[in-house]
């Protein structure tokens, strides 16, 4: 079964609004959670990541919220802009205790920010 799941294949947001992207996971052992941004035919690029010892991390317009009991994490993008339009991939891994940090990815959510 899918260990990391993005239930919304697409999301459309008005420019200036908040984009909320969601990700659910199954494996209790995951301790590293990340969001990647991807344009077509381009490399996935890390946006922001968080370890399991924090519930929230902010970086500019981006905030990751981690809900360990619900096995859920989300990415909030404030003041969304048309250049935020891309595919957003969530990923989780086991980095601690010498883990090799193989990442398990969701299927991606296509975010469209319309002017």
């Amino acid at each position, binding site marked *: 079964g899918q260990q990391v799941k993005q239930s919304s294949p697409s999301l459309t947001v008005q420019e200036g609004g908040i984009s909320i992207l969601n990700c659910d996971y199954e494996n209790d052992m995951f301790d590293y959670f990340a969001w990647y941004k991807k344009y077509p*035919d381009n490399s996935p690029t*890390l946006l922001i990541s968080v370890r399991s010892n924090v519930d929230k991390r902010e970086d500019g317009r981006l905030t990751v919220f981690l809900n360990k009991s619900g096995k859920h994490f989300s990415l909030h993008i404030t003041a969304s802009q048309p250049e935020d339009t891309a595919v957003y991939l969530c990923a989780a891994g086991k*980095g601690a205790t010498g883990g090799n*940090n*193989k990442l398990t990815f969701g*299927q991606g959510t296509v975010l469209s920010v319309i002017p």
Partner: protein
Amino acid sequence: GPKVLQIPSHQIIDMGQMVTLNCDPVSNHLYFYWYKQILGQQMEFLVNFYNGKVMEKSKLFKDQFSVERPDGSYFTLKIQPTALEDSAVYFCASSFARGHAEQFFGPGTRLTVL
């Protein structure tokens, strides 16, 4: 930022042939990864590699697959022989360390097996 390059960007081959996918990782990185993405599905981990050895591989990493990085040159994924189900985009990644270290990805090689 640091870039991972992949050569070629596209490859079309006949089933049963051998193919080598090349990855030029970030220069001071020590850990290397391959991921596979079948059309319409998520990226899935294949293998990671450190100090000349496979550290971990998934069940997708069939016996026909092999990886190496001879003399610090390209990190390669070889498939011999190829099968129809090997058609996918293959992404290479590298990181400076393991654990929680950021993985930098290449743009992928789209492999089509006919």
